[in-house]
């Protein structure tokens, strides 16, 4: 089967048409995000270049090391949602939070995605309750590009970014595409439908409407462990964004978004009538050990978001301007996991007032005020079977988290050769006091072919321990410690990057790049699965050590026209000092990842062939996972195996239409044992026991999958 697929792919790559389209300029699309005065300048003055189809590439102009996933990169795979958009990237690793809910999580610089600040056109998003499923709520086809900035980035949007920032650029109201439709169906019956419509009403007003529906018809249990591999899902997502561009230079942007997502996962059992039965949150009883009463998770996420931005020039040439960014988000998470109930809602408000002054070509500064308010209303109730008795833990109530502060950022440019950005924030955190966060970024280009970057600074964020680690609910373990405390986590990240642009190949975008970053925590919420048996212990790092060193090598070349090779390799050394255990390798953190992407397009892009191979290194797994399929012991620790992942996609393009077929996980590699537990009934793990754990995911849950889709674009005439 595998041989056949690979042979077909190789054969298809041999058949080429003879047409070619190229737009001069640098590779990919660089969108200059000025943040203070609109995210994008669609003019010749802006740093906007267009190229044929570069997918992922390093931005040459940015002061901070920034990887860009362009619109072409987002089309390399089915990319149904944001999580899947990172499959080509070694910087960002995507995994499942658990084997039940379908929640995805990313890792940047070897650390959980909660330490990466997610921005939607420079507004902080996916915070708190929105985080665990947030990656699934951004349809890939809504996006125009993604920028991944590593290290300590700007202080303008707060300092919640510890390992970096990921900024999402959506389709623009000014796009001359009154209709875009994308549909894709996967072999596991998952379907995605996206619609976008950009409309211009005169030259001042424009809007974009974005719609998304996705879900699956059937669910499967391929590894026959009694638990369905992916939950039953149904998502509706609708957004509307507006832009006003006044004659006097005033710009106003505002928009709304509404989302509803339901998912039901867990055990699928057969009752006495031969009917499949799934989890029922109303009737599930942990004490029912005899009847057919499947364990599962039932999650309903609903959210509404609204934002408003205004930029007002104070001088004719816009060298001075003020801007206001305001954002409100309501997130409601109703979640049930067996006998655990976590019902929570979050009101979040964010306001940022900025003044920018570009004194001359060399000197620019931005100062501002900002505030963030999070109001959590939580109701938690959990019963587990622990040490031969049923233990119940509950909490409920309202928590208000507020921080407000002032910031300033000074930018110095010495021509093209040197630039420096020095930023400083002073924030007051409710019940945690005043904190100062400095950040510095340097960029030096001694010659045109070499760019050297360095940056460092402090990051601060409030932990939301349960939702940051949503997988803990999919266990039978007892929670101990301060799992309902919103600890202020504190980390310093330093690092640098050297990129050498090599004058070979068919484009000017051949480069070899190396970067190193280190994140050191001064305070962190530790979620320890290993302190006590069948217990998840939540505690503060305090004076103990927790750090991550991350090394990455990137190579990009277009050896001949329209054939691009991108190779990246990342190595992570992550350590944490756990209670009563000392300094250990951080569990469930893959040591390395290598990605090779080959892309070939025929002339005029009529055929595009993509092939991505990745090798995923081992991670230290918990000791209680010993004996599970693929787990090996080394020096007293247990490790997951090294595994490959292969993806391929072929796109055929017509006027206004693209059709594509793809195959994911061609080698059909899966983590076979995804449900841990010492007690089994008929070979299936009993979820009512304390050792039950469905959150120990280190590999892919889904095997080989095929997909077929289309994109239709109607251009404005």
């Amino acid at each position, binding site marked *: 089967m*595998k*041989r056949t697929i*690979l*042979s077909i*792919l*190789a*054969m298809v*790559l*041999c*058949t*080429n048409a*003879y*047409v*070619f*389209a*190229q*737009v*001069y*300029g640098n590779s990919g*699309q660089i969108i200059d995000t000025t943040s203070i005065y609109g995210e994008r300048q*669609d*003019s*010749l003055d802006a740093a*906007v*270049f*267009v190229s044929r189809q570069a997918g992922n590439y390093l931005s040459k102009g940015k002061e901070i090391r920034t990887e860009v996933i362009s619109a072409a990169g987002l089309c390399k795979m089915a990319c149904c949602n944001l999580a899947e958009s990172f499959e080509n990237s070694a910087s960002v690793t995507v995994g499942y939070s658990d084997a039940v809910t379908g929640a995805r999580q990313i890792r940047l610089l070897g650390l959980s995605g909660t330490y990466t600040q997610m921005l939607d056109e420079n507004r902080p998003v996916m915070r708190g309750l929105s985080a665990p499923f947030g990656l699934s709520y951004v349809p890939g086809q809504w996006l125009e590009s993604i920028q991944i900035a590593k290290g300590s980035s700007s202080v303008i949007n707060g300092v919640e970014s510890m390992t970096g920032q990921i900024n999402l650029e959506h389709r*623009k109201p*000014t*796009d*001359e595409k009154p209709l875009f439709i994308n549909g894709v169906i996967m072999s596991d019956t998952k379907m995605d439908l996206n619609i976008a419509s950009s409309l211009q009403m005169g030259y001042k007003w424009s809007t974009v409407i974005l719609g998304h529906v996705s879900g699956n018809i059937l669910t499967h249990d391929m590894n026959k462990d009694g638990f369905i591999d992916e939950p039953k899902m149904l998502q509706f997502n609708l957004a509307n964004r507006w832009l006003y561009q006044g004659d006097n230079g005033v710009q106003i942007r505002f928009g709304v978004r509404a989302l509803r997502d339901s998912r039901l996962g867990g055990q699928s059992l057969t009752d006495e009538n031969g009917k499949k039965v799934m989890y029922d949150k109303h009737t599930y009883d942990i004490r029912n050990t005899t009847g057919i009463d499947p364990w599962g998770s039932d999650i309903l996420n609903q959210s509404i978001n609204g934002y408003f931005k205004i930029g007002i020039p104070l001088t004719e040439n816009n060298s001075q301007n003020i801007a206001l960014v305001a954002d409100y988000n309501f997130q409601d998470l109703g979640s049930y996991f067996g006998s655990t109930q976590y019902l929570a809602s979050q009101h979040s408000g964010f306001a940022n007032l900025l003044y920018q002054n570009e004194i001359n070509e060399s000197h620019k500064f931005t100062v501002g005020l900002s505030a963030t308010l999070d109001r959590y209303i939580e109701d938690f109730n959990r019963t587990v079977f622990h040490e031969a008795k049923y233990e119940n833990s509950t909490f409920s109530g309202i928590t208000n988290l507020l921080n407000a502060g002032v910031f300033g950022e000074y930018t110095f440019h010495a021509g093209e050769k040197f630039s420096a950005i020095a930023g400083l924030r002073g924030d007051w955190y409710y019940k945690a006091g005043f904190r100062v966060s400095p950040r510095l970024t340097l960029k030096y280009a001694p010659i045109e072919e070499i760019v050297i970057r360095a940056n460092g600074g402090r990051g601060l964020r409030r932990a939301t321990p349960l939702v940051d680690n949503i997988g803990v609910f999919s266990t039978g373990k007892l929670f101990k410690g301060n799992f309902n405390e919103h600890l202020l986590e504190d980390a310093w990240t330093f690092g640098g990057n050297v990129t050498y642009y090599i004058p070979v190949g068919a484009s000017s975008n051949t480069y070899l790049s190396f970067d190193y970053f280190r994140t050191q925590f001064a305070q962190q919420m530790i979620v320890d699965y290993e302190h006590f048996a069948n217990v998840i212990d939540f505690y503060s790092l305090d004076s103990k050590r927790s750090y991550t060193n991350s090394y990455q090598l990137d190579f990009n070349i277009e*050896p*001949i*026209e*329209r*054939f691009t090779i991108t190779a990246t390799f990342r190595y992570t050394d992550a350590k944490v000092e756990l209670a009563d255990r000392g300094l250990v390798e951080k569990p469930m953190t893959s040591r390395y990842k290598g990605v*090779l992407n*080959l892309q*070939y397009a*025929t*002339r*005029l*892009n*009529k055929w595009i*062939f993509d*092939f991505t*191979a990745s090798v995923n290194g081992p991670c230290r797994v918990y000791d209680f996972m010993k004996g599970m399929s693929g787990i090996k012991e080394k020096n007293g620790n247990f490790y997951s195996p090294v595994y*490959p992942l*292969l993806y391929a996609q072929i796109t055929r*393009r*017509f*006027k*206004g239409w693209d059709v594509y077929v793809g195959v994911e996980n061609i*080698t059909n590699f899966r983590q076979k044992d995804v449900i841990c537990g010492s007690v089994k009934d008929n070979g299936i793990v009993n979820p009512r026991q304390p050792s039950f754990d469905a959150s120990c995911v280190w590999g892919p849950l889904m095997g080989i999958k095929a997909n077929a889709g289309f994109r239709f*674009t109607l*251009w*404005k*005439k």
Partner: protein
Amino acid sequence: MTKIIILALAAIIASSATASAANFQEATNFVEQTSDNAPKKKKAAKEVKRVVFNVHMHCASCVKKVQENIAFEKGVKDLKVSLDEHTVDILYDPAKTSEQTLKAAIEALGYHASVKAEK
């Protein structure tokens, strides 16, 4: 398994390289054919013409719009769009289309187009 992956990778690289080399050769011919002083070496050269239009595009979206639409016009063999130079450089088959048709196609997208004078 590893062998299969390596073999597949090798096959893909080799096949793409072969295909690209063929296309590259054709692209080289295109340059030769379109140069005023280049001798007309091949029969196929007679079937290909080149025209450069000045087109007032002002942003990356304009470039994409032109690229995505003109690439699929009948008879277009090659296309290069420059935002810096405001030009759309087209290689086309005169038996299937003409300068006027291509100009009209660009203008239908909402841009003014004029043939760029040869230097």
